[in-house]
Structures are given as structure tokens and as C-alpha cells.
């Protein structure tokens, strides 16, 4: 039922934007990303002297910047998701939600969508940097990379949030939830380093499973079906697990 889903979504948004959570996370994100953006621009402009004429400096800056956004999300998103369910359980408000006429899926989706919204709000101001590049380069920076890159980062972040929701539903302890989310995601990311350039079927499978491997396609301006399928199934899978996990809370409580 849309109405209950919206009720949860609305409450979560209120939680983010009434409390300092959102402001702290967004401010940190902007501060660090602005610093690095500045750094990348300078470095890549310097590099570009003495490079062949087809060296695409704006694309290089964008690519580096998008990579940075992904890395920053890896650090900040666990802080957003760790409380999603752990806090409700600890406070006892889970008992209110679960005895109200709403489905577990509404609770999970409402919370997930709210966290994705927070993530999008975080990303929004970084668009200013991209606009800056757009107006200060000749030829213009490639729009394709900008659009596919932002789609990629949004999908990448949503994966983080879905996994984080699931882990938060497993424990009452926020710190455990945050640390586990961060660790697991780092691991999924690192699969890429370990398997880069692998020829064997196993190596290729492992590489397919790496979250960052697909993201790199997006930063090159390619929207690959395989990447889309990977991210969407990742999200759906963990949302599904979260719903099951919330449902099983009734049975697990001893």
C-alpha cells in the first residue's frame, strides 16, 4: 500500500533533515569532494601539457571525480544505514511498526527510498563542479560521461544502501551494523583488485561480482546492460533479504 510506504518514507526524511544527521553527512561529503575536485583539476591540467592532442582532460577529471564520489560513499553510507533498523529495534519502535497494519515490505522500501533520496541530495551539489567544468572547457566536457557517471554513482550508492539496510536489520547494535557494512562493501570492492585481468572463468565471475568493476563502465560513458542488471539485481536481492529478515524478527525473538 503506497500510503503506508509514504508514511515511513516521510518519517525517515524527517529523521534525516530534522536531526543533524543529513547536514553533517552532506557537509562532510561536499567538503571532501570539493577539496579533491580542486586537486584533480589542477593535477590533470598539469599532466595534459605535453600530452597528445587527443588527451581528453575534462573526461579524465570527471572520471577521477566520479571514482572519488564512490569512495566517499563507501565511507559515509554505512553511517546512514547502520541505524535504519538497529535503532528501531533498540528503541522498541519496531514493536509499533510491526503491530500496525503495514507490510514489512512497506517498512523496508520506505526506509530504503528515503536513504536513496538522502544520497541523491548529497550528490546534487556536486553537479555544480560538473557545471564548472562544462563552462570552462573547450571542447565541452562529454555530457555522456556526466549522465552515465551520475547514474552509475546513484546505482552504486543504492547497492550500498540496500546491503546496509540488510545488515542493520540483523542486529540491535548500530556500531556492529556500520562496521559490518563497511567491511563487506570494501571486500566486494576489493574483489576487483584481486581478479583484474583474470582469464579463467572463476576469475571472470569474481570480477563480475565486484561492485566497482561495473561502475568503471559508467564513468567511461557506457551504460552496459550487464552493469545495469548487476546493480538492479544486487539492490532487489538485498531489499528482499531485508524484508525476510524483518519478517523473521517475529520468529527469531527468543
Amino acid at each position, binding site marked *: 500500500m503506497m*500510503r503506508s510506504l509514504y*508514511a515511513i518514507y516521510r518519517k525517515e526524511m*524527517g529523521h534525516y533533515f530534522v536531526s543533524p544527521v543529513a547536514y553533517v553527512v552532506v557537509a562532510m561529503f561536499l567538503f571532501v569532494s570539493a577539496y579533491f575536485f580542486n586537486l584533480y583539476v589542477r593535477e590533470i591540467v598539469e599532466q595534459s601539457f605535453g600530452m597528445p592532442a587527443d588527451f581528453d582532460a575534462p573526461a579524465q577529471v570527471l572520471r577521477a571525480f566520479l571514482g572519488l564520489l564512490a569512495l566517499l560513499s563507501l565511507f559515509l553510507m554505512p553511517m546512514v544505514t547502520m541505524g535504519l533498523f538497529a535503532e528501531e529495534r533498540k*528503541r522498541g519502535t519496531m*514493536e509499533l511498526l510491526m503491530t500496525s497494519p*503495514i507490510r514489512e515490505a512497506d517498512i523496508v522500501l520506505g526506509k530504503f527510498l528515503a536513504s536513496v533520496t538522502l544520497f541523491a541530495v548529497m550528490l546534487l551539489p556536486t553537479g555544480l563542479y560538473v557545471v564548472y567544468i562544462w563552462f570552462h572547457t573547450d571542447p565541452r566536457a562529454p555530457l555522456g560521461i556526466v549522465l552515465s557517471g551520475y547514474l552509475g554513482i546513484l546505482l552504486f550508492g543504492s547497492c550500498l544502501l540496500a546491503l546496509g539496510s540488510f545488515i542493520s536489520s540483523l542486529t540491535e547494535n548500530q556500531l556492529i551494523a556500520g562496521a559490518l557494512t563497511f567491511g563487506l562493501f570494501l571486500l566486494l570492492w576489493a574483489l576487483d583488485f584481486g581478479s583484474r585481468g583474470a582469464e579463467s572463468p572463476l576469475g571472470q565471475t569474481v570480477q563480475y561480482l565486484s561492485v566497482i568493476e561495473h561502475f568503471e563502465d559508467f564513468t567511461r560513458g557506457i551504460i552496459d546492460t550487464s552493469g545495469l542488471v548487476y546493480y538492479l539485481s544486487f539492490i532487489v536481492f538485498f531489499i528482499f533479504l531485508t524484508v525476510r529478515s524483518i519478517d523473521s524478527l517475529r*520468529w527469531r525473538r527468543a
Partner: protein
Amino acid sequence: MIEVQDLTKAYGPVTAVDHVSFSVHEGEILGFLGPNGAGKTTTMRILTGYLPATSGTAKIAGFDVTTNSLAARRHLGYLPENPPLYPDLTVEGYLDFVLRIKNVPPDKRAARITDALEKTNLGDKRHELIKRLSRGYKQRVGLAQALVHDPLVIVLDEPTVGLDPKQIIEVRHLIKNLAGTHTIILSTHILPEVSMTCDRVVIINKGKIAAIDTPQNLTMQLKGAQRIVIEAQAPEKPLQELLAEISGAQSVEVSPARASGHVTATIEAASGKDIRSLVAAKVVEKGWPLYELRGVSLSLEDIFLELTTDDAEHAQESNESEKTK
């Protein structure tokens, strides 16, 4: 309105609720009475759909809480043991959220909030953040949450915990006023609460129902026996012997009273015999000044102890309660 059949809940080898059956009629207030760990909260959590039962069925407003859970929950208001509050919301914002997840249409929400705040005496805290409220106010916000959507059935787990005596009286009044239009189950370990507010009482112990009846009937059950307490200025031993001789006296306990030289004696008499005048005559005959003589009718408290404690424990506890008197 509420039908519970053979409800059982086992946590591994421990049976928290053991084949419990009862029903609550529309508009009735049912009190759940029992020592800590008796299975009150577990029963309530099953009723509200928070926990699944191991076996047995429970129905709210005709809907099974397991197989038709959403429909059953639609008619339910529930105050858990710890009020489920969001500290960062205002009282009004919180109740608005509750109305939303209870599927109350938008045009009715404002009126429902005002009504609930009025009933729970929270009008002046409407715009206050919940985290700034005292324990008693938080408890009342929890109560407002349970009734804000005007449900048919209201389940209250220890609704007066954390309130001061004045607030307790207010809440009891509130609960009494809710009856009639709402069906209420409340749990408590405070006995007067049950006799004051409830139409019927379920006494539950170790997961099993020990008794179900009206508070009056439960009191009547044990009224057969009579208990007399006297205070006199007399030597303990001879007084004990004297009273024990009275025909009809089943047991006599003598202990020093607060005033020096005074003793109090508690006499349990067999049912149907009024031995008060006999006791008075005997004591006065001896020339011992008699300061007090009163008959004590057994309270719900005694019945409760009778039903929920083993005999040895019972004797000890009633001794203690005598002393504190």
C-alpha cells in the same frame, strides 16, 4: 471481540504461555494479573501480532492474528511495555505518524490528534519534542498512541508504570471511560488497579490461567474465611493461649505492636462463625486493655498470593505483609 483458544508459546524448552483460553466481550475491560514472567507480555504480544504463537489461535474483531494479521492489526491499538516513541519527533508529529501507519484518512487526522491529546491530558505538550518529556509524560504519549486511531481493541501492557499517583488515577479514569466503545485488555501487577478498573480479571501464573472471574467474585471466593486483628496490652504467651482456646479459631499469631507493651494478634476463623464478640469478651475478662478489634476481609492481594505462590512462600509473605501493616 477478542477470542483466545488454547494459546501456547514455547521458547525452546520453556513454555511461556501454556494453553491459555479466554474471551473478551465488546466494551469490556479485562485485567491481566500475574507476577513478573508469568506470560502476560507474551500473551499480549501474540494478540497484537508481534509474536507468532506456537499453537492455538487468537482472534481480534473476528480476524485471526496469524492468518489474517493485517486485518486484525487494523482494529488494534497497542501500548507495549516500553512506549515505542521517536525522541526526535514532537508529540503532534509522532501521533500524526502513528495515524498514517494506521491508515487513518488525512481529513480525520487533525481531529483524532486533538481528541487523543485531550483524553491523555497532553494538550500543552503538543509541540514539545518527545525527548524533552519526563517519564510520566512519555508514558502518556504512549497511551495516546494506542488510542489515537480510535481502534476497536486496545491492548495496554502496564499502562500506569512510571506515573505519579495523581496521573495513575487520571489514567484509570481514562481507561474506564474508554470502555464501552472500546474493548480493552490491560496487564498490571498492581492489584488495586484491577479491582478499580477491570470488569473481569485473568490471573495468570507460570504461563497458565489460575483464575478468571470478576474482581468481586474472586474476593467473595475466599471471603468464607474470616480474619480478625486485635491490638491489646497483654503478655504475648498467655494471650496466644487464650485466643487459641476460642472455639472456631483456626490459627492465632501474636506479635509485638508498635506501642510499647502492646501486642497484635491475628486470628483466622472458620467460615460462618462470627467470633469477634467472643474474642473481645475473653480479652476484657482477663483485665487486658483492648485497643482495637477489626475484621479483615481478604483482599484481591491475598487471593492473588493464594493462587500464584506455593504454600510455604505464601505463609512467609503474608507474615511480612502483616508486619508492614
